[in-house]
């Protein structure tokens, strides 16, 4: 009796999981399939290459090489903006995270400062969009990388502060205390001892911030028009220019999706704590 129910139960579990995985993977699969279909097969319902339709790589070739200048431009912009804003936020997060992990502030208690950073995470982007647009316009920085970099680095700062504080807090104090006895200054201890010890968490935070910046739309859309357009802004505009050429659209979408998804696979262990800013340990 127990053995039979357990076989049935196992089957039910697998079926359940496969249904959900199919639901979440179907749109991705459809993009991949559409991106290798010939125009004449665009509306065919087949998903099996060679069997149901004749696959082709010509859309990939043209979108990346022959007429791919705009795609390449947007990919480069997203990379520059993502790397720069993630660097700024990570460095600032190391400073604040370390201070909050190792020092007890008196006037405003650590927990108040932490709550303040946490509440910034929930701020609606649209409520700072108008003042920021006006400020960037007044400063003459519309359509520059620097405007988007500054905004992304500030907006995603709560993640790096709280997650890195958590990482620093998990370090045993003894090593740092020993260094302090030897006369090392707090900055030396931070950069020479503590930072190397939490290097994996720092890399994870950096990747997380890079993905957030890569995927962010509202600010990038408002602040850029040509020179500094990022991938989401570029593909959002594709619909109006290329209409229902879904194979072209699919290639561009996959170009926008692949980099952050691949990077995320490397930081699986940190995703839960990263996305909840350390509230839940993964």
């Amino acid at each position, binding site marked *: 009796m127990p053995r039979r129910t357990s076989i049935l139960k196992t089957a039910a579990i697998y079926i359940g999981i496969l249904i959900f995985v199919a639901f*979440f993977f179907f749109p991705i699969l459809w993009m991949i399939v559409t991106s290798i279909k010939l125009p004449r097969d665009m509306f065919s319902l087949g998903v099996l290459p060679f069997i149901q339709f004749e696959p082709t790589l010509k859309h990939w070739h043209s979108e990346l090489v022959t007429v791919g200048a705009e795609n390449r431009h947007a990919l480069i912009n997203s990379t520059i903006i993502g790397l720069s804003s993630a660097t700024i936020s990570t460095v600032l997060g190391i400073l604040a995270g370390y201070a909050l992990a190792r020092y007890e502030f008196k006037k405003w208690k650590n927990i108040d400062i932490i709550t303040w950073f946490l509440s910034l995470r929930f*701020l609606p982007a649209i409520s700072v969009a108008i003042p920021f647009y*006006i400020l960037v316009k007044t400063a003459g920085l519309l359509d520059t990388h620097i405007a988007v970099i500054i905004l992304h680095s500030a907006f995603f700062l709560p993640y790096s502060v709280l997650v890195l504080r958590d990482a620093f807090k998990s370090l045993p104090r003894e090593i740092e205390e020993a260094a302090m006895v030897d006369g090392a200054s707090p900055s030396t201890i931070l950069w020479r001892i503590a930072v190397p010890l939490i290097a994996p968490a720092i890399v994870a935070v950096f990747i997380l911030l890079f993905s957030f910046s890569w995927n962010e739309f509202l600010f990038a859309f408002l602040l850029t028009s040509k020179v500094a357009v990022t991938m989401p802004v570029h593909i959002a505009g594709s*619909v109006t220019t290329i209409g229902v050429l879904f194979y072209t659209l699919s290639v561009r979408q996959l170009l926008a999706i692949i980099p952050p998804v691949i990077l995320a696979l490397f930081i699986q262990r940190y995703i839960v704590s990263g996305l909840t800013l350390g509230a839940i340990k993964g």
Partner: protein
Amino acid sequence: MGGRVVKPKFTVYHLFLAIPVLYALSLVIFPLVYSAAISFTNWKLGIPTYEFVGLRNYIDEFHDYRFWNSLRVTFLITAGAVPVEIILGLIIAVLMSHQIKLRGFFRSILLIPLFTSPVAIALMGEVVMYEAGGPINGYLKLLGLQPISWRSSATMAPWTVVIWDVWEWTPFCFLIFLAGIQAIPRVYYEAAEIDGASGFQIFKSITLPMLKYPLITVTMFRLVDTLKIFEIPFVLMAGGGPGIATEVQSVYIYKAGFRGFQFGAASAYSMVFLIIVMVIMMIFIRRVRSYYA
């Protein structure tokens, strides 16, 4: 560190903290204050001067049917999406908490939506829900069912937004619940099995109560973030359409600010929205705060 000795008032730790705090203050809080100030003016782009109009913008908003429509749509989408995401996330987490083959692979697949740009999700919707010849309506037709007006029907449109929000965020709920379940000590389950408890009893009396903190956290994140939803109504529904059927708060404010260029009025709208979001956040943040202590 920070022993009992008398310390100077300003330490290097103060400096470490001050730099990021000032960065966030000047770039996030200052714009908010600026926006609050503009909200009492009739500033419109292209008009040379503007003046103080007191509460005019706020009063106008409360008399604008589009504000109330937008509020209704925002809460409808939130109320539709968040419970579904939490329940599906729980189910998947319970399924995946069993010792199964390919668990890592399945988990990786479920990560994709979380790291996919919301604009790409909106465009995915455009392709798979294309009404004349897209795959979903195509398969429905093969099954002898009626095609669905995913984007062109004003009654269907908010639910289409809900579907894509569920697609995007259920994996987030799943991951957190899975982490929560894996943190529950195995002995609880072993004891329950020895006592002959059924699967549902185990879920109700062990899993669910032990998931209290993950549940509160997930609810806070999903509630606030769904209220702020922008890309799917804006891109997939072409600016909150059809008509104003999916004109959520973010889209409504965006249009006032960047299509009408009424910076004064749009700032007032965004202040009202900010207050709504902050009130909901406050309810949760007091509970969540303790996890960080």
